[in-house]
């Protein structure tokens, strides 16, 4: 008798899940929802509020893609993933894209069969220590206890760094940022190491941020970006160019405030092509002509997203640094919309 719970549930699940058939783009359109993998919670990048609404920098990318494809920035199903489950969730088709501050590496791209569509945050691994330890360089950390998040590239970088400098350390593996912070503040580890953005975000929430310093050494390159499954190029293009549209919009001065006005037509040809008043870029992607308008209107251009979620006005207070547009000496550089 009870067996029918299962069948009943399956029927319902069948309605909800739907089979992954042809291209991801068609699936997403048919489903009317984008399944976007995010972290289970990282301040400024992705965290649910009391009502279960997700917010953050990575979340903003998901919303932009949903807006571009479906015309609705709210049509996103956020699938929280852990360091362990994120890649399988993407590979198995459970999520359509992963925006979970994931480092673009050779082996992930080639061996794990994923396609990184770009970089939404240029990061690097740094160290944070309490000021009272009097440490000014990571090379003085011989014998220190270091908190690291497991399941990330930071673990490997850390081992490499200490081995290369021939100094010893004691790793304390930790699952989430919240736990790492707890251990670090209580002095259970001397050093906390993760991406510099994460360090800044964590430090910002301390009672006395001034008592802690981020050491000058950045020991790795951590280009973080959204990724999709290998082989589905149409879908990869959609995500890639949505991200580029956000970056281009900033370069071209298109913001969520003036977009309605600019979408009516401007004197700048590239803006027009981006916003779909000129050319057929949207059609080439298999989207509506005003796809980029919707993507940008969803949360603003790259700069706006940055300022709103992790910028200097927020408690996290990250400066743009490498993530400034190339015009301001940063690395962000979108290929042209042509």
């Amino acid at each position, binding site marked *: 008798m009870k067996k029918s719970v299962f069948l009943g549930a399956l029927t319902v699940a069948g309605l909800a899940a739907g089979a992954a058939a042809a291209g991801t783009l068609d699936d997403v359109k048919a489903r009317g929802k984008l399944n976007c993998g995010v972290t289970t919670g990282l301040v400024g990048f992705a965290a649910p509020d009391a009502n279960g609404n997700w917010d953050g920098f990575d979340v903003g990318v998901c919303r932009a893609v949903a807006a571009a494809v479906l015309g609705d920035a709210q049509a996103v199903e956020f699938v929280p993933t852990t*360091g*362990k489950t994120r*890649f*399988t969730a993407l*590979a198995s088709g459970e999520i359509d894209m992963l925006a979970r501050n994931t480092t673009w590496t050779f082996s*992930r791209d080639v*061996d*794990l*069969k994923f396609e990184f569509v770009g970089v939404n945050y240029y990061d690097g691994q740094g160290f944070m220590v309490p000021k*009272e*330890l009097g440490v000014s360089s990571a090379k003085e*950390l*011989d*014998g*220190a*206890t270091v908190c690291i998040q*497991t*399941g*990330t590239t930071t*673990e*490997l970088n*850390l*081992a*490499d760094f*200490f*081995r290369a400098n021939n100094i010893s*350390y*004691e*790793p*304390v*593996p*930790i*699952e989430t940022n919240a736990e790492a912070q*707890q*251990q670090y503040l*209580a*002095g*259970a*580890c*001397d050093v906390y190491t993760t991406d510099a953005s994460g360090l800044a975000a964590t430090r910002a929430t301390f009672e006395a941020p001034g008592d802690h310093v981020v050491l000058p050494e950045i020991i790795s390159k951590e280009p973080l970006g959204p990724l999709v499954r*290998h082989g589905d190029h149409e879908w990869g293009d959609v995500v890639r160019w949505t991200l580029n549209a956000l970056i281009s919009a900033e370069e071209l001065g298109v913001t969520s405030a003036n977009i309605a006005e600019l979408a009516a037509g401007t004197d700048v040809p590239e803006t027009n092509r981006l916003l779909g008043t000129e050319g057929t870029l949207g059609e080439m992607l298999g989207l509506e002509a005003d796809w980029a308008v919707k993507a940008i209107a969803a949360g603003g251009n790259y700069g706006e997203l940055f300022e709103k979620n992790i910028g200097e006005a927020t408690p996290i207070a990250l400066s743009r640094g490498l993530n400034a547009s190339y015009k301001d000496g940063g690395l962000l550089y979108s290929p042209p919309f042509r």
Partner: protein
Amino acid sequence: MTTLTDPPKESFRLSMLIYDTRYRSLTIQVIAMIGFMVLIGWLISNTAQNLQALGKEPSFRFLSEPAGYDINQRLIEYDSQATHLRAAFVGILNTLLVAVMGCITATILGVIIGVLRLSKNWLISRLMTIYVEMFRNVPLLLWIVFIMAILIETLPAPRAFRGETPEATMNLADSVAITNRGVYVPEPLFSNSLGNIHLFGEHSLRFDISLDLIAVLAALFIGLFIRRKIKTRADAIQESTGDRPTTWYLSLGAVVIPTGAVLIALGFHLGYPELKGFNFKGGIHMRNSLIALWLALSLYTAAFIAEIVRAGILAISKGQTEAASALGLRPNRTMSLVILPQALRVIIPPLISNYLNLTKNSSLAIAVGYMDLTGTLMGVTLNQTGRELETVLMGMSIYLAISLLISMVMNWYNNSVKLVER
């Protein structure tokens, strides 16, 4: 439904496969076997298809590649250049370590609490009831993170030991340091060490056995053997003369002298932990994660063992207690000499399954970053190599093997103490 007719002489018909009870069981079994085979085949073919679609090929080659990550708690030598297989081996040893430690303390605590629950002291028995209910009704995972949080938040950090007027000091004549990174206790050191035996050469599974440890253990065993001889002789004398010779000093000497001699010959001394740089150096470092996991597992399992012990004691009829009192035994002697030995037979089978549970529950180590098998092979290795199928299946088989081994050993023990009945 059997009728007394002649045995059927007619030739075999197909319908007999279903209707004839002689053949029906065969039919059912064959169908079950075929069904099982089909299921397995179906799963394997699905897996093959899916893996092909993902462009992955099952392979265990990653096991011989360098792991690249460090493990803080290790019983055998390991560094980030060692292989993934070696990392898994480190994890297995860590699993076994915490399981063995947990089983021992859980048993001790469980017996004490189980006995105290039956105490005549109202306050004590209520307190023990609260303990048991508190631990049994809250998930273990919550206890693990909770105890970890308590250790981290309430104990002093190593830096509190520093300075002219430190906020925290070491305990037991400066030999034990309790910090929120773990507990540092003195370690045994040998100045004339005999060295180690290296097993398995350069293979990933290589490990060393300390000859010092073997020597000490050998001396201890010799001592115990002599002590037993002395006891047998004393028994014999008591049998024949009725007087039992005083032997305690002989027994003590037999145990202490050989062991002590070996220890002195090896130059045994204790290495004390000392605050150097960021951390305490020297001594044995029992890490926070190990202590939290160990405590949580022991306290949680002890609550279950306490209930088993209580039930076991209550299962012994009251006549036994009364007979013991009539013989003039005092309550605690009654408990240890009369009740517990009998209750043990009732207690052991469920105790085994609790040991098994504890071992399996040790996989929750992942919550506090204790690098057991789940943390190494099914944790970091899985993450870094992306080999889900291989690592998870390997991990499951290892756990299965450990479980089967434990239940085999314990069942063998159970059979050996079982009452031989008619």
